[in-house]
């Protein structure tokens, strides 16, 4: 018997018609089963076997074909649902400010090395901001022009260092802290804003324990963490609150130390100030027989270098043109 019709069916309806024609109540095969009773027993057995085989083959073929046609139907349906996926590229939405982002990276490095984070008020007094940091009232390094004062004699902190003093006064050594935050200087031009951000670090431990070599270790590790594969250079310098003091440079990340406009053709970028804590600072907070190091850095400087931003003021204008690049 010819079952090739099944394979030719184009739709599920056609297939159903064929199924009814073959296997329905009045179908050809069903009919043939009914006729079996008219055959001689021997003959009946043989034909019955053949019919059973035929029925099974037809059923299998129909099922196969059904599955095939259903797949085809689904494919056609899905094809109609096709969209142009290339239309849906997302637009930039939101970004953390580069200063915050940089500050977070700095904080993370030090907290992972078991530093605590401390903060203090922006409005400070003379003692915490100057006097206790070995900057007596008439010290030449204390440039009056640089400081914002209030009518009641208080001032806006000129660095995050007063937090060192506050922490030393409220806690006991060993101290391992950083202090991030806003600081203020009376300066407003291309490279200065009256407010900017610093992160300060201080480590105090027993006498003769903390050395300049320790400071060198942590800052080298830190700068490589922040800037990748850079050379680090320490230059002796002066800060009233540390002795010995140093400024720290990294090899220029733009020209790899070859010399370019950004590094003023020196091959180096100044990024940090640091030193061994001056004994007068410990004296001011009543600490005896201790040793320590301190360091401080400008977050804007880091943010500008890490993001290749060359205008400081744009960072304070909520400028989406700047921030959408950080999406």
């Amino acid at each position, binding site marked *: 018997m010819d079952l090739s019709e099944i394979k030719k069916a184009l739709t599920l309806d056609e297939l159903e018609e064929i199924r009814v024609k073959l296997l329905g109540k009045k179908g050809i095969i069903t009919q043939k089963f009914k006729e079996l009773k008219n055959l001689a027993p021997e003959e009946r057995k043989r034909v019955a076997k053949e019919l059973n085989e035929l029925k099974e083959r037809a059923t299998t073929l129909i099922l196969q074909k059904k599955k095939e046609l259903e797949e085809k139907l689904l494919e056609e349906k899905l094809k109609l649902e096709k969209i142009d996926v290339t*239309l*849906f590229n997302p*637009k930039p*939405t*939101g*970004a*953390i*400010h580069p200063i*915050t982002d940089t500050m*977070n990276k700095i*904080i993370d490095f030090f*907290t992972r090395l*078991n530093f*605590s*984070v*401390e903060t203090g*008020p*922006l*409005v400070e007094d003379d003692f915490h901001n100057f006097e206790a940091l070995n900057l007596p009232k*008439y010290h*030449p*390094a204390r440039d009056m022009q640089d400081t*914002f004062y*209030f*009518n009641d004699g208080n001032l806006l902190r000129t660095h995050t260092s007063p937090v060192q003093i506050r922490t030393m006064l409220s806690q006991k050594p*060993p101290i391992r*802290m950083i202090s991030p935050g*806003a600081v203020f200087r*009376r300066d407003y031009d291309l490279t200065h*804003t*009256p407010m900017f951000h610093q992160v300060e670090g201080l*480590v105090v431990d027993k006498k*003769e324990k903390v*050395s*300049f*070599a320790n400071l*060198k*270790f942590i800052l080298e590790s830190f700068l490589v963490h922040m800037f990748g594969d850079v050379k680090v*250079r*320490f*230059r*002796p*310098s*002066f800060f*009233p609150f540390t*002795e*010995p*003091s*140093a*400024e720290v440079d990294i090899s220029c990340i733009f020209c790899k130390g070859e010399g370019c406009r950004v590094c003023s053709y020196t091959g180096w970028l100044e990024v940090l100030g640091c030193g*061994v804590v001056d*004994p007068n600072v410990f004296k001011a907070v009543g600490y005896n027989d201790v*040793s320590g190091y301190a360091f401080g850095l400008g977050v804007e400087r880091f943010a500008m270098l890490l993001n290749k931003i060359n205008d400081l003021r744009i960072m*304070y*204008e*909520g*400028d*989406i043109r700047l*921030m*959408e690049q950080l999406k």
Partner: protein
Amino acid sequence: MKITRRWLEEFIDLDGISTDKIITTLNKIGQEVEGYEKIEVPENVVVGEVIECHKHPNADKLNVCRVNVGDDELQIVCGADNVAAGQFVPVAKIGAELGDFKIKKAKLRGIESFGMICAAREIGLPDFHDGILVLDNSLGELKIGEYVGKYLNDEVIELGVTANRGDCFSVYGIARELRAGLGRKLKSLNFEYHTMPEGIGRIISVKQNQVKHSSHLIKAINGKIVDKLKIKYRLALVDEEFKDSFDSYIKYAMHATGVLLVGGNISDIYLTNKDGVDVFGCESGEYLVGIKNSLEVEDNGRYLINANFADADYVNEIAFIKGLKGDEYFFRASRGSNPDLRFGLEYVLNELKIPAYSGDIDVSTDFEKTILSVDINSVTNIIGFRINEKDIVEILKSLGFEILSISDNFIKVKVPEFRNDIKNIQDIAEEILRIYGIDKIPSKPLEFVEKDRTNEVLKELDFERELKLRAVANGFYEAIHFVFDNKERLQKYGFEVLDEHLDLLNPIAKELNTLRSTILLQLLDDVKRNKANGYKRVYLFSSGSVYDKNRNEKKSIAFVVNGWSDYENPSNQGKPKKVDFKFLVDKLGAIIGEFELRENNAYPLAHPYQNAKIIKNNQEIGVIAKLHPKIAKDFDLDDVYFAEIDLEKLKPSKKEVGEIIKFPKVTRDLSVVVDKGLSYKDVYDIICKLEIDELKEFYPIDIYDLGDKNSLTIRFIIQANKTLKDEEINSIMDKILKALEDRGIKLR
């Protein structure tokens, strides 16, 4: 502070050492080089002698000169009015290139010119004189025809001398540093000047002699001052100003030696202490020692020069106490000037070459000498590395320390008098470290005892960081602002301002004349700016300190939205909906978590009828509102919605997960008719009061106008620890409906 290489070489032997090496060394030992400039006269500019000079026949302002340039005699037309026969001048010969200008044979008003007589600025030098540059022998014996650069080429190094190193504010001071840094010897200088037999005591009488904090060494001279090219040229290279010829010598010697020098005319003098301040005075004025010089000097050929020194601590303290504003003398003295008075005085006499009266007036005060005992173990502990005794001794010697004794790890030293900054062992450790070289010190990790250092500050920082990340994920950009704002503007918009006695004394600009009490105005500035830059969707947030009238600091976070609620895309046919109240509420909910809104009365900036208090954990934490259209107009903006929240009240709430109820939730809607003046909060409160345990949640889903009343549809979510039967659900709904009806709210 600037120095020049050739000037430096007067004091130290730098043969065979490149300027690069000098710069590297200075940086390495803590004298930061901030600038470098090579001064180079162009080629083919040679020394010429003006043999003849007469007026140009056809031009009043031109001269025709005959100039001997060694291998030739040139006719040159020169426009300068100071040109004269007998002068030695720089001549740019034909072919010389002065910047972009190439010297060629020229004809000026009919007369041929074969070169140019130059001014300093024309040959790449500082502009420090009028007319043409007249050369003299002060920078080396002039040879006609010689390249002018041989006399004038130099290299200028600019140093950022730190405030503690007054001894380095001079060429000699830097030479001294290089002695230690390069291991080179200082040159021994021979000062020569003519001394007259007449003694100084015969012409100057000292009236008083009572200075307490300063030393003075005074000489008198008699003769005519002759200008010297070297002096004026070098002062120009290092940006030092002077009043007249005599002053140029004084400033030159001060810059060279670091010794404070003041000049005067020969007259009776007095040295006294007025009200605590040391004063040197004569006929023509007074000098407050180490603070301010107001002596006038007349050009009469009879001069006195006072080399002086005052203790830096005294100078700083007295100037501060008396409120005296100092000049350049104060700058030097307050940081520590050179106490070697004879050196400074003889240096200037040697340059002046004017006969001096014999003897001098010497008024000395004894200053304390610092003797320190250097414990090598302490130095090792400070540096974290052991430098051997021999090296330490060598370093200290090269810095001018006198070694008094050495024994068992202790070196007793006398600190040089010019180093007023060295007072203790850490100062000495710094000297040893910087000369030995920081790069030779191996880095060493610190060993410490571990400790839990996660404090409240860190938790708050982490919370703030999380908030910011959520804001960003909700499409906001972070802005950072100064904590300053304009007081008048804050007042105009009804914000709190600092009490006058707590306000800024010296603001940097009028726009930044006080501390802000809100972040919102700055955010509105930003919205305006971004809108002007073409942004149609501006969502910003900012956090930071704000201040009340008593200057109490508080941390605040503020949000603003303006423009479209989505970006333009095919789904909205390029016309996204504008942001509205609900838009900001939803964003805020996604950022700070669940909160409740209550009607707000007046709030600065707010639209009077779209203005709400934000309530979280039963306390008011901030405000959310539409910007008042009148104010929006001030900022050239249309619809803006804002929120400002007290960060300190937005502490992270403890979240706990309870057991999950596995029985099905049932939803029922109820539509009621409410008065128009009624707020949803009133309905909410009525239902809440019922305290129905099974009522998990309910919220408004529709509101519409029925004319004189509104229809409000509320959805109720009911769930219990069992499957609720219909009767049970109905009884809950009946209870709610009854409570509403008791308050006159009927089913629609």
